[in-house]
């Protein structure tokens, strides 16, 4: 099993009252990451292959074809890392 760091380049907590997290996947792993996430998460909506509105373990998030994702309403970074681990590993 490869570690989460192999997929994730950066995690940014958004500026604003929403307190969402932006996850930026590593360029060379983004296609693999997107594929794995789409296999495990429930697809609510999709616009072509550009944006996917998804839910996983009661967490809603948007995944972008450019290899970025925005996770909403997570309590903290630990919670995000757990979700990402479950999605990717």
């Amino acid at each position, binding site marked *: 099993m490869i570690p989460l760091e192999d997929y994730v380049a950066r995690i940014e907590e*958004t*500026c*604003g*009252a*929403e307190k*969402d997290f*932006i996850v930026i996947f590593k360029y060379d792993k983004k296609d693999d990451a997107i594929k794995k996430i789409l296999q495990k998460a429930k697809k609510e909506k999709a616009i072509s292959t*550009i*944006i996917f509105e998804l839910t996983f373990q009661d967490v809603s998030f*948007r995944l*972008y*074809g*450019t290899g*970025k994702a*925005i996770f*909403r309403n997570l309590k903290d970074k630990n919670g995000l890392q757990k979700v990402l681990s479950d999605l990717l590993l």
Partner: protein
Amino acid sequence: MFDPHKIREDFPILKRKINNYTLIYFDNAASSQKPRQVIEAIKDFYENHNSNVHRAVHTLSQEASELYERAHDEVADFIHADGMEEIIFVRGTTEAINLVAYSWGLRNLKKGDEVIVSLMEHHSNIVPWEILSKLNGFNIKYVGVSDDGTLNYEAYEELISEKTKIVCFSHVSNFSGVINDVKRIAKIAHDHGALILIDGAQSVPHLPTHVKDLDVDFLAFSGHKMLGPTGIGVLYGKCEILEKMEPFQGGGEMIREVLFDSITKRCTITWNDLPWKFEAGTPNICDGIGLMEAVRYLRRLGMENVQAHEYTLTEYAMKHMLECQKIEIYGPEDASAKCGIIPFNVEGFSSHDVALLLDNYGIMVRSGFHCTQPLHAIFKLKSSARASFYIYNTREEIDSFIEVLKEIE
């Protein structure tokens, strides 16, 4: 003739592709791109003139000193200051404001005194005063904003008194782009014996700036928002005020003499002349020279032309954005009251979603609070997206931006 298409040729980064789209850079309020001339000036300094400034007799140091001093001179000319004595190079707007807070404020503000700050401010013009008020015990009074995002000018008349020592506000809001009436507030402040400090981070890069005409006591701005490098900024101060101020930091360069008295066993220090009194340690020489080149570039274009171009873009963008059903724009609807900045949200999307969606198409905009959390609270916003324009942006880029916004809708 002002031709943004021609100007674009000077900016190598604008040829970049992002996600297979040609880069559209609409995050200029955060930081501008750099023309080849500035990049070359930095390269030339390190390749041909690099040395420390002042007090060395060798050729390289003479050259570096002359360039660094000329940079101060040209910045002084750019904002119509009296001379380089009034131009202190700092890291950026934030450091410039902190310099005033700690050099002037620490010694001149005491319990019972008042500072007036607007709620429109970037955090960098709020936080230093709040920190200092905890140390010195003075009071801060905040001026609110109207529904259209303009300053509540009447509040200045109500809040100001003989207790007021300084009035701090931005010339242009980094959230809404609204242009504030500096002269009007300067008059109110000066009539009551108070100084004014202007955050010029969003005005100096975009508008003609005449510090004497505006009658400002302090003006802070950043190089990186006006085509220059990061890590260099300016504090303008009226000479007679700077002369009376004590230095912010101590070290080399800012002193004339450090004499050890064998009787008192202490050192007696004499400060250097202005502006060096406030530039302790080896300064950011190269980026100062980069800023000079940026100023030369803007002067060649003419700041009136820069302002006119941004007005045209802002008016065009707002007109087409307002045609979208789900887009809300904040601040004045009249583009002439603004300065190249459009804050907005798309119904049903967070600002970060909007920024990520635009990023998909190679369009860079900011999202979040833009360091103006109190102002977002006034507008009852969780965050906002912000498009901000500069000299190299075009109508065609705005068309692409609108096209994506319509797609998001």
